[in-house]
């Protein structure tokens, strides 16, 4: 589960991770008030930041500086309601519904810092770079030597020497060792307190406040482990449904794994691996999947019906491919779900069904006698070929 920058920064503050001061604003009025407060406190610059979950906001025009309350209000008016298109939002973009108005900082230098669940080391790992604001994944590809990466032992947790290594790598020498260690320790603490799966600070900045220089999290991106959210009812409330595709929300209600894609062939499959493989084979035969949908191992007829309805309601879908290998999931349950969904919502596109596994004969018979127009297939290759042909209208 992702949250907004302003929510992450509030959690940072509670944990003791140094970050900027600001307020969330859902309207121009609120933005004006928030800016006024910051100017009253003696800030000479405030930052108006679009709050969407996707990264790349700055380049898309979602982050602007203001030197007066009026300018902040004007910028807020421009950014609120705007659809930001960044490499992470996809071409349809994401509408800005809230802003974060924060104090401007006098930035000396920007860095990159993140901590994440590392599959390779099966531990928490830190990534850092002496350049901030850039795309870390691109940097990892082009200049891996510019990235510091290390795992933290569960036995020790982050120690001062980790902080020293980080500080020296960032070119901050001995002066900021304690601060670097504090960042690592507090982020680590945050992970265990919240079941986070990723914390990314890009940029982490060295800012000057009068004569002193200190490290500050200028941005905050946090992802929580979906499997751990149940233990944190308060964090669950931070979920913003407007950041998620409506079909995906509907699917989540029924505990279905659904991801909307751009193609025209609706897919309904059991099991995540088989669902991915089904998308792949559809593509091999010249089609494009409209979605990833895993109904799970032990789905009921009701769940299958709801899943099928979500696909039927998608106007992009020109043909549907149901690919089921029944193990625990019985083929007759799948058939029952398809038939009852098609009674509620007219089946208006070609449907190809490939059933295999437990109770396959019963399932096939139910579909045959249902009166629905269904193309059947024995193997998934045959099914994929048929559904692509059907989509193209022949």
């Amino acid at each position: 589960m992702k949250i907004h920058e302003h929510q992450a920064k509030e959690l940072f503050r509670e944990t003791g991770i140094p970050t900027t001061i600001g307020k969330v604003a859902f309207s121009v009025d609120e933005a004006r008030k928030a800016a006024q407060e910051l100017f009253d406190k003696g800030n000479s610059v405030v930052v108006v930041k679009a709050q969407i979950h996707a990264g790349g906001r700055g380049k898309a025009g979602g982050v602007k500086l203001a030197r007066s309350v009026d300018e902040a209000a004007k910028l807020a008016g421009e950014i609120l309601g705007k659809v930001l298109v960044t490499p992470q939002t996809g071409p349809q973009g994401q509408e800005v519904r809230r802003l974060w108005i924060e104090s401007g900082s006098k930035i000396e230098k920007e860095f990159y810092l993140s901590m994440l669940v590392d599959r390779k080391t099966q531990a928490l790992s830190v990534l850092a770079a002496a350049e901030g604001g850039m795309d870390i994944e691109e940097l990892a590809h082009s200049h891996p030597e510019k990235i510091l990466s290390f795992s933290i032992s569960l036995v020790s947790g982050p120690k001062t020497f980790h902080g020293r290594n980080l500080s020296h790598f960032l070119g901050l020498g001995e002066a900021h060792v304690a601060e670097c260690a504090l960042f690592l320790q507090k982020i680590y603490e945050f992970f265990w307190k919240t079941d986070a799966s990723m914390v990314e600070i890009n940029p982490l900045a060295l800012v000057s406040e009068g004569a002193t220089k200190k490290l500050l999290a200028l941005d905050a991106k946090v992802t929580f482990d979906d499997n751990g959210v149940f233990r944190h009812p308060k964090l669950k409330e931070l979920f913003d449904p407007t950041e998620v595709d409506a079909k995906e929300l509907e699917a989540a209600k029924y505990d279905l794994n659904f991801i909307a894609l751009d193609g025209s062939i609706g897919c309904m499959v059991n099991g995540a691996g088989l669902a991915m493989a089904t998308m792949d084979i559809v593509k091999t035969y010249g089609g494009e999947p409209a979605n990833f949908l895993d109904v799970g191992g032990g789905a009921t007829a009701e769940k299958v019906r709801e899943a099928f309805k979500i696909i039927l309601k998608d106007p992009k879908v020109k043909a549907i491919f149901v690919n089921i290998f029944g193990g625990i999931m019985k083929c007759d349950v799948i058939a029952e779900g398809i038939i009852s969904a098609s009674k509620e919502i007219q089946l208006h596109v070609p449907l190809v069904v490939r059933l295999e596994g437990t109770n396959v004969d019963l399932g096939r018979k139910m579909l045959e006698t249902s009166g629905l127009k269904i193309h059947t297939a024995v193997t998934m290759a045959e099914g994929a070929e048929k559904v692509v042909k059907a989509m193209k209208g022949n």
Partner: protein
Amino acid sequence: MSVLVGKESIVITQGITGKAGLFHSQQCRDYGTKLVGGVTPGKGGQKVDNFHVWDSCAEAVAAVGANVSMVFVPPAAAADSILEAFESGIPLVVAITEGIPVLDMMRVKKYLDLKNYELSREGKSQLRLIGPNCPGIITPGAAKIGIMPGYIHRPGSVGIVSRSGTLTYEAVHQVTQMGMGQSTCIGIGGDPIQGMNFIDALELFNNDPGTESVIMIGEIGGSAEEEAAAWIQKNMKKPVAGFIAGVTAPPGRRMGHAGAIISGGGGTASSKIEALIAAGATVAKTPADMGTALKQALR
């Protein structure tokens, strides 16, 4: 021959009185697995459908000498249950539970690493965890410990290891349809932190006289397949066929399995396929070709 489980396995189910735990325990017993009972704290002494119920793993070990535990305990308590099984002297735990918090599993993994280091210094055999979030393990005709449909399997010489459940069934089905059979099938699960990995399974198959070839089924995310490919190139004495799911998956989206996500340049299907081919494996172009890829590899 087979790996890890067989006729000698004495199995208990942790969470046996739950709906899924009981159903699958019955299915395993019907298949012929020596599944004698299970653990549900607070319900010790009861019987469900002729299964003994104990309060703890230690009691089950003392009573029947259980040497495998199948875990169906709900996510919040699953990591605790896995550790309990190991601490009770059960050397193999098969964790079916889906949705265990990743950081819980990170602790379990660290426990296993440290424990296995101690055991290896003492010259003792290792503790093994399969899963979580996996279909389990089956040695056809001998022991089914998991949720896979037993009847599609057939005893034979193909070892199968996979991150995905239903995709494994697809491979098993194709192998069986070709008139061949499986030595053992291991579902290692789709979570980012897991017990056994591909290399652990490949090593077992490599040393198993009953396994003559291997199908390895991977998917996008992480670098486990690339690491496995490097291991195959160096060590594998037997033909390997592979398949990687997720060629068409968009970057940054989690494809059902928490592990199945492409981030940055890493974890793509194409890098995994290239690594496997470079290691000498035959890679199926589509999931419908896993059986034929194996045939090619055997040539």
